[in-house]
């Protein structure tokens, strides 16, 4: 009797840009323990309570992460932000939500300087980008069609 076998045509080589993913991971691993713990805590809140970071495609996720985390960094640093367009306003809504959550759950933020908060938010942005874009194992991210 002939055994029928089914061959997988793709070995699913993801993430798509392994070098970028490795560089991003190395940068995160190089952070000091306190910063890493703080970034992890902030990432955990986003992952459990937000949906904006999970749009379907790489370009869309980058746009979302930049839009929302960019405004949130300003708000947490005490800088004003006035949305000018409906899209800005939509980002701002999620940014304010993030700002309130972090101020309520991360007491150490109150003791940080503006510059330190901005630097921390930059690391958070890099980590979210890694988890949802460069290091993501989601093969549909680079699909040209929606």
């Amino acid at each position, binding site marked *: 009797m002939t055994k029928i076998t089914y061959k997988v045509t793709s070995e*699913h080589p993801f993430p798509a840009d392994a070098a970028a993913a490795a560089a991003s991971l190395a940068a995160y691993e190089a952070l000091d323990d306190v910063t890493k713990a703080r970034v992890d805590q902030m990432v955990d809140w986003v992952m*459990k309570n937000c949906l904006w970071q999970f749009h379907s495609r790489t370009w869309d996720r980058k746009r979302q992460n930049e839009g929302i985390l960019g405004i949130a960094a300003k708000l947490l640093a005490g800088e004003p932000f006035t949305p000018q367009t409906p899209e800005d306003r*939509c980002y701002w809504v*999620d940014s304010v939500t993030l700002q309130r959550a972090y101020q309520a759950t991360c007491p150490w933020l109150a003791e940080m300087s503006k510059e330190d908060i901005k630097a921390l938010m930059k690391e958070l942005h890099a980590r979210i980008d890694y988890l949802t874009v460069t290091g993501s*194992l*989601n093969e549909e991210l680079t699909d040209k069609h*929606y």
Partner: protein
Amino acid sequence: MPYHEFDCSKCLPERKKHAVTKGTGDNLATALPLGYLNTIPGSISERGCAYCGAKHVIGTPMKDVIHMSHGPVGCTYDTWQTKRYISDNNNFQLKYTFATDVREKHIVFGAEGLLKQNIIEAFKACPDIKRMTIYQTCATALIGDDINAVAAEVMEEMPDVDIFTCNSPGFGGPSQSGGHHKINIAWINDKVGTVEPEITSDYVINYVGEYNIQGDQEVMLDYFTRMGIQVLSTFTGNGTYDGLRAMHRAHLNVLECARSAEYICNELRVRYGIPRLDIDGFGFEPLSQSLRKIGMFFGIEDRAEAIIAEETARWKPELDWYKERLKGKKVCLWPGGSKLWHWAHVIEEEMGVKVVSVYTKFGHQGDMEKGIARCGEDALAIDDPNELEGLEALERLQPDIIFTGKRPGEVAKKMRVPYLNAHAYHNGPYKGFEGWVRFARDIYNGIYSPMHQLSGLDISKDEIPTDRGFVTQRMLSDAHLPEEIAKSESLRRYTGKDDIIADLRKKNPPYFTPIIKAEAAE
């Protein structure tokens, strides 16, 4: 990668990449199963087809429409009534289903004439209904029937009717999700922008990816209306055909089920500049956050806060009564798609249960990313499981209850594992503050039903105890509770009505006068 290989699927080695266990320290870059791929030959999948995804999931909840399947009767029968997407027009879309009854002779000679005859007959049989959707099926797609041409011909002959054609035959994708995509894009291409709505509020939204399962949409509509927000259209539960043609005039798209409806939101953003706000309608905290965000977008957050305060005060003590009794119970979260991520975190937080497994039948890797991100450690995540894998997982995980559809649910019952219907609900709605308590109540009733003890006895061989009565739910659930919790006067069981939707439909909520109209009146 922490793949999980099922013993029953060792003969299908490709299946190994479709299941992972989220271990300590795992994240989305280390643990994610494959997804949205063709089912592996030999694996008996539980998926639906692309026709089902377009018609049954997205199209049919539209309430004032004749939903006509162009194909054999079986296609329409198997996509009829199994999901309780009710409507406030006496459930027209649930009561009737239409098919052109294509047979062998039509496959040989063509079925366009048959389709035209059926369309005209259906409109004559339902004189109050002037809207129709025609769904292509595998058989009529393969013989090349031009449903668009037939629809155009009828619309010319009957100018008071409007017909939408959905070309999503069953083979049009690896699962029903392919059909979601096709009908989203067809609707925005063919119908959005063809009706101009009356705007009655300063705050106008489309409520997208919401299918009014047992009244979910009507619960949320009540909150939005109390905030003074006009819901221009709901895509598609309890939605009207013409309301959905006017989606282009909303200020904001509020999206629930991203898997089934993000496509139309993304297109509305690109074509009409309407932003997309993803929300969760389940659970006290996520729902509160969602209402706040919508309020914030329009500058009316105080109205959202008023609703949150009122609803939380009314229902939180009842949610907490169940939480105390559900703590630590193991659950398998096995719905079809979006509820795996809507519920994964919040049921642990607000009901105290432990999610030991998540699965999706037809979801994409993006759905699994959300699910894995939100569930706790040690959860087993499975993509497109077959029945044997489901059985093996139940034996290994020993859950106290599973949330799934009725087909896998009935299998679980045979293994004496209680199940709740995550698709059509048991006693919904489950959205909203009260709805979330109803969900907790149903979980409690499922886990502590005395039936499960009785079902473990085999009357052909077991000794049947006759010297004692049944153990009640309350005796089971309160056996190990501290007395102050068991007898707490601040906590109470669900006190709502069986049918909460009837009252909502009678409500005349306080509408806020639109600024536009107020200024015109001055």
